[in-house]
């Protein structure tokens, strides 16, 4: 028989999998019934929606900031380069948990935000910090501004991966720096930028659970609120895990199609088998 090793390995793996599934299904302490009861509980669903909103908005902030910071970092102007480097140094150098807490308590530093002439001039408009920085905004700022620093490095790596000759060709056609970036360099950099950005998005989905520390009712905190009352800790954490897995799966499929789109014009198309790699990506957890 050919490939007898594979057959033996398959049987062993199947047996082990069966044992695990059997024990999980038949272990009453998993309380699958409770899992089912709470999977679509309105509080959980609302929490899941907040998690999605946080992830989406934080990634939008992160990507926009990342592109701006990366372009700044590669600018010919040394002041602009220094600004970008400082931002990345600061936001990458402090834990995102600390940044989230910081935004939550920023009202202690600046109780009021005002628009006006600085250094004691007249004030045109003013708003209280706690009014402006709600828990959601604090969580969003903490996650998004931190993500910007990471995305900047991803975008910069993407831009640097594009052959210098591309820029020269564009310049020789009379294209200016920003037009060259937008039309020639960034679309090619996308092939390098997309896979780690997909990774970042999936990571963000899970990192967003950190905002539970500032009592923002996203998916995890919503579950915590429930199990602090009914003490069904394990089933509710399973509910949370199921939702996260569902979202990461959807995101991975989206990433697959994005990668395929940006691989156009290259001989190395994204192959169908790569779908498996994308799925493996989804399941891989990264510590924030």
């Amino acid at each position, binding site marked *: 028989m050919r490939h007898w090793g594979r057959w033996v390995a398959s049987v062993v793996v199947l047996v082990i999998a069966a044992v695990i599934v059997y024990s999980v299904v038949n272990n009453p302490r998993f309380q699958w019934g409770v899992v089912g009861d709470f999977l679509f509980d309105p509080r959980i669903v609302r929490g899941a929606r907040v998690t999605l909103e946080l992830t989406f908005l934080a990634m939008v902030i992160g990507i926009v900031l990342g592109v701006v910071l990366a372009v700044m970092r590669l600018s010919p102007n040394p002041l602009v380069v220094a600004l970008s480097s400082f931002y990345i140094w600061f936001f990458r150098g402090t834990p995102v948990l600390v940044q989230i807490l910081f935004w939550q308590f920023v009202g202690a530093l600046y109780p009021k935000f005002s628009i006006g002439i600085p250094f004691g001039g007249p004030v045109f408009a003013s708003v209280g910090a706690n009014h402006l920085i709600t828990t959601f905004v604090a969580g969003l700022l903490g996650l998004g501004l931190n993500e910007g620093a990471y995305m900047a490095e991803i975008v910069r790596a993407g831009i640097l991966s594009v*052959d210098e*000759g*591309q820029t*020269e*060709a*564009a*310049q*020789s*056609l*009379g*294209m*200016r*720096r920003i*037009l060259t970036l937008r*039309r*020639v360099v960034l*679309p*090619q950099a996308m092939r390098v930028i997309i896979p780690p950005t997909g990774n970042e998005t999936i990571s963000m989905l899970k990192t967003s659970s950190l905002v539970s520390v500032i009592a923002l009712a996203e998916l995890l905190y919503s579950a915590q609120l429930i199990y602090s009352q009914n003490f069904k800790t394990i089933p509710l954490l399973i509910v949370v895990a199921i939702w996260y897995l569902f979202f990461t799966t959807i995101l991975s499929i989206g990433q697959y199609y994005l990668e395929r789109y*940006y691989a*156009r*014009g*290259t*001989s190395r198309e994204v192959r169908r088998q790569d779908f498996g790699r994308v799925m493996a990506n989804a399941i891989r957890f990264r510590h924030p």
Partner: protein
Amino acid sequence: MSDLMLKAEAVHKSFGRLEVLKGVSLEVKTGEVMCMLGPSGSGKSTFLRCINHLEKIDAGRLWVDGSLVGYRQQGDKLHELRESEVAGERAQIGMVFQRFNLFPHMTALENVIEAPTHVLGVDKATAVAEGQALLERVGLADKVDVYPAQLSGGQQQRVAISRALAMKPKLMLFDEPTSALDPELVGDVLDAMRQLARDGMTMVVVTHEIGFAREAGDTLVFMDEGVIVESGPPREVLSNPRHDRTRAFLSKVL
């Protein structure tokens, strides 16, 4: 358009401590084809890149069609032009690279219409019609919707020539346009260049194709170690080189 398309006066260029151009002076009349020959490292490609300010010159002056390249002169002082002004100058100078440098994420036609639509503001329908005509002229009518990766080197280089011509340049620069091609593909590219020369385009061609220089060139410049060793009508320079260095080089390549 002035009678003199390109004028260089004592152009110097160094990379760090390495002096690549040690005072290059030459003139190219409108409608002329000038070929530049020389061993690698002689500075001919660097000089070509100075003409459209891809490299900044350290000393000397370069004029294209009567205006200073990359700088504005006020009294004795030279002020570097703003990015938009440099881009405006470059838009009028076409350049063809050794490695083609086509945009790989765009089809052949998209490559050709990119700069006309986004730099000159030509409307898309006009740009497409002109682009198709340009590609047709170099024998690529059936390749308009094909990505560069699916084209041979020779086809890619002809797309690159069309891309440069789409900007309706007054001067075309060729940086060893056939050096990266398989021998059997060189002919088509040279044909396209000959056609262009017959149409009266002013061209500066850095090349190792002696045959092309002899037939299509009006002037031949031989460079070595950052200076022009000799120049003149191609047949004269090629058959009767006055300088030892030219003779030594030609004996190796002929």
